[in-house]
């Protein structure tokens, strides 16, 4: 199948225990796997965790993005996955990120404070475009830092 470049944005509810240690190791695992698989599949993007939610942007060839999304859908570590956007794109917003993770460092904490994170930032209130823009900006800052 000839496959153009697409961007997929979703958010989901985190099903991992809220205990910090377990959560940390699960996220490590997810990221490690993602980076290996995504590199192989020419997928780039970013993953955000907050307020019990994941939000993720995946960009790459449509068939690969679909396959990755299907694996992600089957993952028991989250649920209530809401697909926010699936659109053809001309170029990547995260060209250098096999899968960036955003959510812990200081710079992000500050950034999130700006959008009301401390009061329970809820990605479910954002549109696909907004999540995409947010993650892209955070990624740029991260790269600059």
């Amino acid at each position, binding site marked *: 199948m000839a496959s153009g470049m697409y961007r997929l944005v979703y958010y989901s509810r985190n099903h991992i225990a809220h205990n910090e240690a377990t959560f940390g190791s699960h996220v490590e695992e997810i990221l490690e796997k993602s980076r290996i698989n995504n590199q192989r599949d020419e997928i780039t993007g970013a993953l955000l965790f907050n307020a019990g939610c994941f939000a993720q942007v995946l960009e790459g060839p449509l068939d690969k993005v*679909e396959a990755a999304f299907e694996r992600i859908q089957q993952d028991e570590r989250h649920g209530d*996955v809401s697909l926010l956007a699936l659109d053809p794109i001309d170029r990547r917003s995260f060209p250098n990120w096999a899968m960036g993770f955003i959510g812990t460092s200081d710079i992000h904490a500050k950034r999130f404070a700006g959008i009301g994170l401390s009061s329970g930032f809820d990605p479910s209130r954002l549109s696909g475009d907004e999540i995409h823009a947010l993650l892209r900006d955070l990624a740029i800052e991260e790269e600059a830092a």
Partner: protein
Amino acid sequence: MNVATPFPQITQAHPAGIPSAEQILELLPRPVLVVGSDGLVTYANTASMTSLAAVVGSEMHDLFPGCALNLATMTGAPSSLLVSRDSENFDAAIAALGAGQFLIDLRPSLHAQCADKPSGLDELTGLTKRNALLAYLSSALCTGPASSVAVHCLDLDRFKMINDTLGHAVGDLLLKKVADRLTAACHKDDIVARIGGDEFVVLQRHVEEEGAAETLASRIVDLIGRTYVIHGHTVNIGVSVGVAIGTNAVQARDLLRNGDLALYEAKKAGRGRYSMFKNGMDALLFARREMEIDLRRALALKQFKLNYQPFINVTSNRVDGFEALLRWEHPVKGNIPPLSFISLAEENGLIVKIGEWVMRTACVEAMSWPGEMIVAVNVSPLQFKADTLLDTVATALKRSGLPAHRLEIEITEGALLDDTDNVIQTLNSLRELGVKISMDDFGTGYSSLSYLQKFPFNKIKIDRSFVASDDADSEAILRSIAGLGASLGMAITAEGVETAEQLSRIRGERCTHVQGYLTGRPMGMDQIPAFLAQNDVE
């Protein structure tokens, strides 16, 4: 060949010319295995290598996936059915060799095989097909405790719509993804089968633990209901699941039927959920099936007839017309009230045929009434969906010769709930024919005033419950609906008027018509002339 456990007999010396037992085993055209109590193969003859790809070290549950093996209890039993990875059936005779070793003699199962051979695996999804599933299920029920087996019968919700709108290619990919997700949700000993277009069955093992079957069913509902992305389309479907757990008394087919009964319940309860089989479901369903068969026959056998209940114009005190009411005179069960069969007829689509009959008959019978007497006919929401309503009405009018303005069609809010635009379009076309349209049972459903704005009904019929109770609230509601209708230029019928006191109350409330036992009970066609004659005198 590396034989882990040597057999003393086999290695014994033999007189020249007579083959050794080992040679005989190797030449035997059917598979023979020796297996440890841990399920590991310790000896496999040549035939078992060719037909099962079994080697020393193979695991029994890989060779016969989905067959719960309890070698100790199966020993000495006449034979057990085992199904190989290629869906080949074997009658297995098992003998204990001592030291935790078992000899398994596998004879290809002849009768089951002819049924099974052409099937193999489902081409599209690679899942097990119906026949093999039945074989697995039979063997699971007879080899282990029956209560450790559960079947989950699945039916995809909205699959047909996806297939119709996005095409078969997407539909096929969707089925593959569903198959993947099911396989991912299940344990590797479980069997996932596709038994029809969008019907799947999961055979779950090891459900001894309380709630294990429920857990899997709810996992399936969750997982299959998650969004799919296929060729850039976002696809959303759901799944309904019926679960039945094995008991010693049931055969494979019965267990599947129980699962189907539970599936039917899950669908009836609103789809996108699972339901567990309970005893008694079969009796209920049996009664429904029976009624469905009777219902299909009823039209042909002319068991339906129409009764007519008059509605009275409160200003002129004259009969303006009659509402046609469906009666089913069952030869054995007597009169069956519409409440007990209309929902069934709507479920199986028979309502469309029955509705056509009612429309035709009402128009013909109304032709014999004097003057401009109106006949009101109820129309089910499903008749709108069937898309033939306009045609049915036009034909009924033409054939009977009834002028269109003498026909009033009664719809309920339910008709306007889905696909409102299309329904309104049909209503407008009916109105163009000259037919009157009234809103029935107003006040019981959503009673959305926006419906009244969307279509200029000729009449609103206020539900009997507001007439029956004489509390201040009901009265206020009755008054305001009547006022609203009057200001929109709609006639108002108060239904269910039973006492003179209620009638006098209604008269004060701007209702234009009344209908109820007080002003006339439903009557047969033949009673109408007498009723009208008597009414004229008064």
